[in-house]
């Protein structure tokens, strides 16, 4: 038993952070930039998440969407779905929130070093993945070939449009985008589900890791496509969602069989997921 504990070490105690920038990404999504009052860094790894508190309303787990290579502040991109996320959407610059974390394992940077990478993001799956993509671009020489595929339902649901344009013109990686459907002529790019982008990229399955984040339905199709391309089970990496309350392996809500998504996850390899009966 730990004997030197004090109340100040309460697992529930958040640090206060100030909202320094809000930007709408779409009707339902906004990106929020925060800075800790004590001036410290969040110190996250790509793929980790925080528990954000709005006092009087509650807490919610949100991935950090900014790369740790960006110093001085961090960004959370949030879809308004329930109490905490909707309340967050009403906040303006200068508002204070509580932040606990970073939590979770994050993407396996060490494993990825020197390897080729295929990023596959569907919809708001881009939020956690953006952190890693920017991390890789900022440390470009540590990684091999990089291909990035992004798909969303319609041109109106595209997120981080400025960033997408940057990636599009970026010489350091191949970036392809598609929308599931488009009723008008507002979009001249690819149309079709994300798997239709696969024939357009070539990669060496032995050297490549696929990192896939998106809605549950997308996983099934994208994983099948990756396997078809010859990727091994443990070269397919995904981030899973579960109900979370504590983020620190106590409350039990995030269990996937015997694992706690907030501790051993949220990032898992497909090899792990296959052995977990409750994972997908």
């Amino acid at each position, binding site marked *: 038993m730990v004997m030197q504990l*004090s109340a100040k070490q*309460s697992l529930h105690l958040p640090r206060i952070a100030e909202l320094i920038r809000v930007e709408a990404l779409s009707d339902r999504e906004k990106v929020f930039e925060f800075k800790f009052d004590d001036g410290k860094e969040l110190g996250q790894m790509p793929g980790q998440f925080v528990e954000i508190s709005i006092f009087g309303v509650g807490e919610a787990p949100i991935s950090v969407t900014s790369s740790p290579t960006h110093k001085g502040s961090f960004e959370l991109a949030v879809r308004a779905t329930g109490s905490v996320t909707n309340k967050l959407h009403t906040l303006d610059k200068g508002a204070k929130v*509580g932040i606990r974390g970073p939590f979770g394992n994050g993407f396996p940077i060490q494993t990825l070093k020197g390897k080729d990478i295929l990023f596959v993001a569907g919809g708001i799956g881009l939020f956690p993945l953006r952190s890693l993509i920017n991390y890789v671009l900022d440390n470009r020489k540590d990684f091999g070939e990089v291909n990035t595929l992004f798909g969303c339902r319609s041109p109106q649901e595209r997120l981080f449009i400025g960033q997408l344009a940057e990636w599009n013109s970026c010489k350091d990686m191949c970036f392809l985008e598609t929308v599931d459907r488009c009723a008008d002529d507002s979009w001249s790019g690819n149309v079709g589900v994300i798997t239709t982008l696969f024939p357009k990229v070539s990669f060496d399955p032995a050297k490549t890791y696929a990192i896939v984040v998106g809605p549950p339905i997308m996983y099934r199709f994208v994983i099948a496509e990756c396997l078809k391309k010859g990727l091994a089970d443990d070269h397919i990496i995904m981030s899973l969602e579960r109900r979370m309350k504590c983020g620190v392996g106590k409350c039990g809500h995030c269990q996937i069989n015997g694992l706690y998504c907030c501790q051993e996850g949220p990032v898992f390899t497909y090899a792990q997921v296959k052995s977990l009966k409750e994972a997908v």
Partner: protein
Amino acid sequence: MQNRVISKKDLAGFVDDLIKTKAAGEVIGIKAKDDKFNFGTLKNAAELRLDYDIALLPPKKYFFPQIETVLKYEFGATPKVEPVVDDKAMCLVGVHPFDIRGILLFDAVYGGANPDANLLMKRRNSTIIGVDCLTPNPKSFAASMGTAVTDEGFDLMLTDIGGDYFVTVGTTKGDSLIKKAKTRDATPADQEKRDKVRKDTLKKYQVTLKMKADEIPALLDANWESKVFNDKAATCFSCGSCVMVCPTCVCFDVQDDPALNLKGGERYRRWDGCMLTEFAKVASGENFREHKEQRFRHRMYRKGKYLLERYKYLGCVGCGRCAIACLAQIASPAETFNLIKEGK
């Protein structure tokens, strides 16, 4: 440390002294509640019912209260946030060995990598005086789980050896407490009596597991698809009684409660459990254990496998509370494990 023997009268005197002097903090003991028993604050030793079968709620409630405030805050330009940790000293008298094993599981879960101040600080300031259970509840199967007797997790352990109590001293804290009481040194003959009493009670457990407890994980591994889970869960109310009364259920929910004057509020945690329908449901509407069969199976795996693999303590101590509480008569892990073993 020297084990001791204390007469029933002197034990009462010892407890009354603990209450009067508060030497080990507030004294909590097992008391009658109508024709059942439950832990509560002791006013005097006469209230103590060491001959009980089972407490309605396990004593974990003193370390992990049903509802516990963990933060207080004031709103404002910069919110003021204070952690709340109640760590008053407590002395629990009359805790059964299997409930002690439950508390040890809590120490493992709430200690470890992310130590939880709320639980551990209460534990640090607590004293546990156990008592061997000589009158097990008919639904209990602690003997099969190896938890009917414990050699760790207590400061003092009492065993009724006829006229007197044998006092097994577990810690120096226990030692210095019992030194203040009128006792005599235990002889090898006393110890033999204690061991015989313990051995005899093992036979009083009416529910038995048809396998060794350490075979349960492998049994579950091989039977994910077993229809026992479906058969049993068919009558499940998803009422959560089984997880609410369980000494090894560790799960909680967290909620905010703002004050009506909107000057601030508090955040509290409350017992929650995987048998309840919303436990694994997320805001998008997806429920990762949507069906009661899935929830029922998950609980059985928690009890028989997951917790053991994670924390080295079995997730079920065989107290039988869930079996007593379950109105559908399906909650006993022993029964499910036995049915699977028998290939039903």
